[in-house]
């Protein structure tokens, strides 16, 4: 197959999948309650038990105490990712906070938080460090 034809099929295909995803509603993010956040955290961290969960008002992120350390959980599409917080940099933004992680895959995580929520979270993260 000539490269121009393959390239065209790939580009048209990518656009078609993207449009279909939008049309079918496959772009709706997951929202968690505290129980779901706990469940997702346990599934992603075998052997760790969440002792305390602070869920963001958006239901899209949480701070979780487990195994004597503080972890962050955040929604990625319809699933979640979790990461231990290892003295992160805390960068305030207009919509919440950005935390830095020691991880090439996810070097920073963006959290949407109300202003007073951001202040509480900052204090909690600084306390844990």
């Amino acid at each position, binding site marked *: *197959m000539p490269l121009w034809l*393959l390239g065209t*099929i*790939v580009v*048209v*295909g*990518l656009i*078609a*999948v*993207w449009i*279909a*995803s*939008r049309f*079918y*509603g*496959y*772009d709706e993010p997951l929202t968690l309650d505290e129980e779901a956040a706990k469940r997702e955290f346990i*599934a*992603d*961290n*075998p*052997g*760790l038990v969440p002792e305390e969960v602070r869920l963001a008002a958006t239901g899209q992120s949480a701070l979780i105490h487990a*195994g*004597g350390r503080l972890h962050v959980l*955040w929604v*990625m*599409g*319809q*699933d*979640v*990712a*979790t*990461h231990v917080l290892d003295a992160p940099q805390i960068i305030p933004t207009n919509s919440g906070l950005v935390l830095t*992680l020691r*991880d*090439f*895959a*996810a070097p920073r*995580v963006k959290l949407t938080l109300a202003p007073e929520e951001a202040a509480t979270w900052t204090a909690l993260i600084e306390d844990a460090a």
Partner: protein
Amino acid sequence: MDLAQLTYPDVVTLAVPFFVAAILIEMTWIFIANRGGRYEVRDAMTSLAMGVGNVASGTLLGFVAFGFFMWLWRITPLDLGTSWWVIALCFVLDDLRYYWVHRFGHRVRWVWASHVNHHSSQHYNLTTALRQTWTGTFTFMMIVRAPLVLMGFHPAMILFVGGLNLIYQFWIHTEAIGKMPRWVEAVMNTPSHHRVHHGRNPRYLDANYAGVFIIWDRMFGTFVPELEDERPDYGLVHNIGTFNPLRVAFHEWVAIFRDWTQPGVTWRDRFLYAVMPPGWRHDGTGGGSDALKARYVEANPDTAGTPGLEPGRLGSDRRRPL
């Protein structure tokens, strides 16, 4: 016939229009039936980008493996020719080759660094099939194909049947198909068997490495059936927090490099960080899949001895209690 000129159709690129159509059909089916799988736009786009990058890296670096095979072809005195039964035999033996490369891909971290990205999606649909590595050349796993060339299978034929193998594996990445007829499940790799392979449930870890024929797993003791009452939870034991294809492609290589450059590691440790199973740590604090299975059985004693959790699959949990 001049075998140096032997060519076969590039079946993988010919299959691309079919891949696109099948993905659109699966997405639509899930939307209409409201079952049979999940799609998420960024996850799907990342998987497709990985597929495109895989083809691009194959175009750029494919000459390394092919050059190696052609060199072997020149030194081997054997030539099996090109009859149909030779192609069929080549397909079966190359599938055995696939089984072992795939098994190394999960048990040797250097190879896992490349293969991990196929498992980095938390979804399981046809796009997941196309979430392929960009760094396969650097694993040196082309060596496992050397015996085939030395036995007299032409390199072009080996790459042709390898392409057919990849195409076969496309359709099994779906939740829309439950179980196939008994004889199919007995001999062939199926959606059910491969869902197990993508599951991060302790019982499903390090199982069903097959490409086309599931018989290799049954022969070498790595087969685990999909249980009715335990749905696979897809993805990595600890999932990566990114949709960025570059980060997906290279994150484990960077992790190896970071393990190598941490203070206090010896050259022996560095070697072991490359060849031991994922999860190994030089200070003994790590835990691979066998330790995860052991801990799971300890917490759920009634599961001991059930599929995937037989005594032989459990390691010792060397992690100190928290």
